[in-house]
């Protein structure tokens, strides 16, 4: 572990006039790690990426690339390459000329440039397209050219700015696996900016969830999904049902809480900041909730609810239900456990396995 990290941000701040776009952000990206910056628009993820690429200079803090301070290096002197959301392909050059642009700037020999162009086009599976111009290609192919052009430079870190944003859904899903395969094959660290939590969860080794210029949670996709660090993260990642509760007492590793409607439940996992007696939020995932027409306490945590809406979604049915104190929950049920017809507006019982619930301070 003496090898320096591919990339490190140390307490980086970026202000534009009065506005703080990035507020004391620190993280490290390991060699050949797939790292995502995830957050809603305006959260500072793109500004962070632009500081990594060199298009913005941090107001405070440092950017280290392979252990060397690169905070003030211009983009053309950095060992990073960026895949633009707009692809930014050079329209007057062929695919091969586009891909060769980086290696040619490094003053490599003609043979070496040709080798790199060939390898990069191989990696993105566009071997036969070298002599086309960008406008003769589909959106997905242009996206691959943009990727090949950045890879041909063999950067220490590849930066990707919502590269799949302009593609349609099916192509986007294909490209997620493609990107992951390419990243494994070339072994370069990827820093991937996206607002799409599904994309981030599918591809990333680790995710930094950003909000208002800060990192709210940095962890593996599983940690972020199952043990979110804040209510914002819980709400942003996947569908979450958030139930306001009152924290009562610690019981070993678990916590006892009071649900709306005075029911009681035990919660297996809790944020380290949980305090007894304080208001808390119970985080439940729709697929961990179970809905039954009759019911009552059945040894599992649960509460009485009213069914508001039923939505058929193909393989599953999604219910919107309302508990006491107007707490709304989303429940996803396989078709074979669907409620009997005409259940809308009826009373039902929702229950969950306490191992899949997580407690956060409100």
């Amino acid at each position: 572990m003496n090898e320096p990290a591919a990339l490190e941000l140390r307490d980086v701040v970026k202000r534009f006039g009065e506005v703080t776009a990035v507020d004391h952000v620190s993280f490290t990206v390991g060699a050949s790690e797939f790292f995502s910056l995830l957050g809603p628009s305006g959260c500072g993820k793109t500004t962070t990426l632009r500081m990594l690429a060199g298009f913005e200079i941090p107001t405070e803090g440092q950017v280290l690339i392979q252990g060397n301070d690169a905070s003030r290096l211009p983009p053309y002197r950095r060992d990073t390459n960026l895949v633009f959301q707009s692809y930014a392909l050079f329209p007057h050059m062929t695919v091969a000329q586009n891909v060769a642009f980086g290696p040619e700037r490094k003053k490599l020999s003609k043979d070496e440039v040709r080798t790199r162009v060939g390898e990069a086009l191989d990696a993105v599976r566009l071997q036969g397209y070298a002599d086309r111009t960008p406008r003769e290609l589909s959106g997905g192919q242009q996206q691959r050219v943009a990727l090949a052009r950045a890879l041909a430079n063999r950067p220490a870190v590849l930066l990707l700015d919502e590269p799949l944003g302009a593609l349609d859904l099916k192509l986007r899903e294909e490209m997620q696996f493609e990107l992951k395969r390419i990243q494994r094959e070339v072994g370069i660290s990827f820093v991937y900016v996206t607002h799409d939590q599904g994309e981030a969860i599918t591809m990333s080794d680790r995710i930094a969830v950003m909000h208002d210029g800060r990192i709210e949670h940095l962890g593996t996709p599983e940690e972020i999904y199952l043990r979110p660090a804040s209510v914002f993260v819980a709400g942003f990642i996947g569908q979450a049902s958030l139930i306001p509760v009152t924290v009562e007492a610690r019981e070993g590793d678990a916590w006892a809480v009071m649900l709306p409607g005075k029911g009681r439940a035990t919660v297996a996992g809790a944020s380290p900041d949980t305090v007894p007696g304080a208001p808390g939020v119970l985080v439940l995932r729709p697929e961990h909730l179970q809905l039954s027409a009759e019911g009552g306490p059945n040894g599992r945590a649960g509460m009485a609810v009213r069914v508001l809406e039923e939505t058929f979604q193909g393989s599953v049915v999604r219910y919107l239900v309302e508990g006491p104190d107007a707490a709304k929950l989303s429940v996803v049920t396989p078709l074979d456990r669907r409620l009997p017809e005409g259940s809308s507006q009826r009373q039902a019982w929702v229950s969950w396995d306490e191992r899949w619930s997580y407690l956060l301070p409100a």
Partner: protein
Amino acid sequence: MAVASARAEARAAAKVSGRVAAYALPPSIWLLVLFGGPLALLLWMSFQLRSITGATGYTLDNYATIFTDPTYLKVMWNTVLICTVSMAVMLIVAVPIAYLLAFRVRPRYELLLLLMFVMAGELNPLIRIYAWRIMLGREGVVNSVLQAVGVIDAPIDALLFTRLSVVIVLATTYIPYTTIPIYAALKAVEPDLLEAANDLGSRLTTTFRKLLLPLAAPGIFVAIIIVYIPMFSEFATPALVGGTSGYMIGNAIQEQVLEAGNWGIGAAMSFMLLTLSVVVAFLGYRGAKIRRLEASS
């Protein structure tokens, strides 16, 4: 059914084209009479000797004279040199200005600067030329300032009534018309492309050569068409600031026609100028068209 509707369509098309022809007729006649007529007359005159005092029969003497007489050859060389140097100077200045306007100036100042630039070109030509005489003369602003600062001891005479002064005045006159088409071409370039080039290891100088110049090329060719050609027929500027060394074809034509009464030579030179313009326009058009096809996405 299909045949009937096809016939109806053909009739409708004929009706439309008939109407277009009707609209086009008056301006066509106008052009033919007022532009084509004099042009034909000029062509006829270029093959006549002293045609003002009566026809002398067809001859190629006028063309032979302007292509062999050293005086005329020198004037032609002078004209090409002055126009080409002016054009080159303008392109060297216009491309960076267009780049700055298109990419570097804050959007809210962009239009204002562009407008100021155009307004400067709308100044009355005579006033502008006389202003330059005041600037460049022996006692002019440039010489006075240089002397006051101590850069020179005696005034530089070469500033006025030389080819240099014609180049300076022409270049400053036509610079807006050179810059604007280039600016328009660059404005169509995604700013992301410049960042991508920078990101891939290209400094600004390389980006200019590899990216901005090829993408600005359609604008550069348009600028050449609308600036290089009109400069060839300039006569006011060389007459007022050119002196004897900055003498151009326009002045020679004026002198032959108005002072020497030699319409044949004047007409021949006008035709030679027209041919040159058509050639430059064609090359510029070809260049702009090819480049546009390559650069558009």
